[in-house]
């Protein structure tokens, strides 16, 4: 069966993605080192705490206790790299036209629900898609917004006096810290689902995030309207 190589991920996206991976890991790790010093959040229902972030064994297991100063240093150093990497990514998306691959439209929410049902083996038919399905579009755009929100809430608790206007907009220091914490939890949730989906999608998909290309069967039906005029070949 004849094949074509499809360019899945541009070089810039691959580099920015893989740079972001250790940066985000470091930000979460150093954030936990800081959070340990004042671990006040939990999941409560009617005043009863179902789960406390985090249990003592979790800190002990990871060797977190009494590393506040180290956590602050790491967090305040690497946050600038995280910020710059994110800004470059957004600028690249806008100017390269790659935003077309990740932005959702209003109809995406319905199709994302169908994708989820398909992934859960409840429905058979998968909605038509481009490089990413609509659930991915929502997740990948959402994670950019989460990154921006993390920076904003982080700055509000980093410099609550100098940026008091920002801290006030977010509801004060305590609220800004609460938002910053839950954004971290959301990042961890995204990370877990992302890794699970990558594992399910298989080697070829993972490899395309390293080398940029994926081999596709030439019989694949390609919508004429989504073909690149220069390189595309209608089959």
């Amino acid at each position: 069966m004849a094949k074509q190589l499809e360019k899945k991920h541009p070089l810039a996206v691959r580099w920015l993605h893989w740079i972001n991976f250790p940066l985000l890991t470091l930000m979460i790790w150093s954030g936990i080192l800081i959070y340990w010093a004042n671990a006040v959040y939990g999941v409560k229902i009617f005043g009863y705490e179902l789960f406390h972030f985090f249990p003592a064994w979790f800190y002990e297991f990871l060797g977190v206790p009494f590393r506040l100063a180290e956590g602050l240093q790491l967090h305040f150093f690497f946050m600038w790299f995280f910020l710059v990497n994110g800004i470059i990514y957004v600028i690249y998306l806008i100017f390269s036209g790659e935003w077309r691959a990740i932005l959702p439209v209003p109809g995406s929410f319905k199709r994302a629900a169908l994708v989820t049902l398909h992934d859960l083996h409840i429905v058979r038919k998968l909605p038509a898609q481009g490089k990413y399905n609509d659930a991915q579009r929502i997740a990948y755009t959402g994670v950019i917004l989460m990154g921006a929100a993390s920076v904003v809430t982080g700055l509000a608790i980093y410099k609550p006096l100098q940026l008091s206007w920002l801290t006030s907009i977010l509801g004060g220091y305590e609220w800004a810290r609460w938002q910053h914490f839950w954004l971290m939890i959301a990042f961890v949730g995204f990370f877990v689902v992302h890794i699970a989906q990558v594992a399910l999608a298989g080697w070829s998909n993972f490899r395309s995030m390293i080398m940029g290309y994926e081999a596709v069967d030439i019989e694949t039906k390609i919508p004429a309207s989504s073909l690149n005029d220069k390189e595309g070949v209608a089959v």
Partner: protein
Amino acid sequence: MSEEKEKFTEIESEVLVEKVRELELTKQKAESSDAQNLERDNTAVILNEKRELSEPLSDDEAKQQMSSRSRRNFLIGGATALAGIFGWRFAAR
């Protein structure tokens, strides 16, 4: 009698051809409407996302090109990861 029969057969076949034409037309309309619905329901089409595909390749050519690109990129990735790890260890010291 035979002439009448012949005429009848001719009319019958014309009617059949006409029916087949109608059926084909209906089928074509349904297919094009399905395709239009499919396009309308595809975010990639709505946002005019482009797909970049190489020239058609044989299985062997595709495999060869993928292997060579894969090797190069995994080496670069591995070297970068190692540089990162050693850089981190150096900075931590």
